[in-house]
């Protein structure tokens, strides 16, 4: 066998590998999370995380002829064993890995916060006398264009909503009836991003938030005092809401991760979540309830991937595991706002 033929055969054998994974590939988020779990919790953890079956809290429909409601609320519950310190360590890692500077818009450019969402819509039809509720999922996308000078005019675009998933014939009929057929993008603009001054989770309101993690957590406790089932669960929801809207300041993003790490009871819900094709580690606060709320990020890059709320029990025509809300957030810099139709 001459040298050329040998080289060719070696190349063929190498390329015949059924997987392109390599020993030099970077660690996956799941691997990082598992490493943290091992070294910080291994002595106390059982071999495998186990899911407890949550107690059904029940979903009651409001007294109205037709109610359209997006269900949001406290987190569900998941792991036994608890991996609080592993979660905190992973969040601290992620906070450290948030790039110190992100691409900032130059003069005339815009930062775009692009949010794609899956949203559950539940419709209770009391006219039948059965209080039966049916649901369907819609997909929607919004973009917020923030000028280089944030005191300037911001632009908001809401793209046409579409049906993402239905659950049977009645669900399909309701989706056809209620999902708007208007194909146009809805545009609005507001100086300084004050589209809705009552919304404290808006991008514009983020400038006011403390950058020190403990002060930020205290701020969240104060802002949510008296709300929800638990103080810590509500603080978590507070941060999840801000992350869902999008955070453009890396210092604030890092502070939010560190503040979440300080919440007692925070755990890793899933070390390898696939949200719209992007893999990350998800975190939650276990609590009794029918909805689990998670924030998902990549600890290796510090990138926030998204947020989701999952139904843990069948309800309103939807099976357990249905995403009541899943948001994927991406930020980029662009030169101009697309022409408005």
């Amino acid at each position, binding site marked *: 066998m001459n040298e050329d033929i040998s080289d060719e055969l070696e190349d063929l054998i190498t390329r015949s590998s059924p997987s392109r*994974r390599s020993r030099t590939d970077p660690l*996956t988020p799941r691997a990082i999370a598992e490493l943290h779990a091992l070294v910080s919790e291994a002595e106390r953890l059982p071999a495998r995380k186990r899911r407890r079956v949550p107690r059904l809290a029940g979903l009651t429909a409001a007294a109205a002829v037709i109610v359209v409601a997006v269900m949001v609320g406290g987190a569900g519950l998941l792991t036994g064993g608890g991996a609080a310190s592993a979660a905190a360590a992973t969040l601290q890692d992620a906070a450290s890995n948030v790039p110190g500077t992100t691409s900032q818009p130059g003069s005339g450019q815009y930062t775009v916060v692009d949010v794609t969402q899956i949203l559950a819509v539940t419709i209770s039809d009391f006219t039948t006398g059965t209080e039966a509720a049916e649901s369907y999922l819609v997909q929607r996308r919004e973009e917020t264009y923030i000028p280089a000078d944030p005191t300037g005019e911001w632009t908001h675009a809401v793209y046409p909503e579409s049906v993402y998933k239905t659950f049977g014939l009645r669900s399909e009929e309701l989706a056809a009836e209620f999902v708007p057929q208007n194909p146009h993008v809805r545009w609005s603009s507001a100086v300084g991003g004050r589209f809705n001054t009552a919304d404290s989770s808006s991008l514009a309101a983020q400038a006011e938030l403390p950058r020190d993690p403990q002060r930020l957590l205290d701020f969240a406790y104060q802002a949510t005092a008296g709300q929800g089932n638990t103080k810590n669960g509500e603080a978590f929801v507070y941060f999840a809401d801000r992350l869902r809207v999008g955070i453009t300041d890396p210092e604030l993003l890092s502070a939010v991760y560190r503040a979440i790490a300080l919440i007692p009871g925070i755990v890793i819900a899933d070390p390898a979540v696939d949200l719209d094709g992007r893999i990350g580690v998800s975190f939650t606060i276990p609590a009794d309830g029918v909805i689990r709320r998670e924030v998902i990020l990549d600890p290796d890059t510090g990138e926030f991937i998204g947020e989701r709320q999952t139904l843990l029990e069948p309800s309103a025509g939807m099976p357990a595991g249905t995403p009541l809300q899943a948001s994927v957030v991406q930020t980029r810099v662009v030169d101009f706002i697309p022409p408005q139709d």
Partner: protein
Amino acid sequence: MIADQASSAAAKFEVDMQGDSPDPDQFSGFYRSHYSLVLAVVARRTIGLGVAEDITSEVFRVAWQRHQQGDPLSLPWLYTTARNLVGNEHRRQKRHRSLRERAINDLRLQADNSDTEDLEDVRLRMAEMQASDRELLQMSYWDELSAIEIAEILGIEPGAVRVRQHRARARLRELLDSAKSNGDQR
């Protein structure tokens, strides 16, 4: 191309791991050095990345337990443990297929759709080889293990690894040529 140089950092690290008390930092270094290799090795021998990740997690969970007990960790131990757990998974999934059928089917299922006939042919002929020859080629060319690493895993001298590699390649070449001439005659 064979990875000819062993990772000296990893090799040194393995010596350092032979301590008496568990050290999270040392274990983390070991984990970060070898996780991707173990995942790649397992992924080539199982179907579905999720299964491969589960098995890899199990490998490192056992490794951590071993480290906590003060036992040494090394690449050969990791590789052998990974292969054993892959074997367990195959036994668990055992249906009514022969080993050869399974090897061929598994490789086909995992193969990239964009693969050429040549690559498919190489996989088929490798599945026909003696297990020891196939293993050696997979360790060298798929798993990117150096001759020194393979020697450690197999408990033989690096020189013997090179001799076996040469023979295994020659056997594969014979099988490929024979299959080609059979195909040409048809």
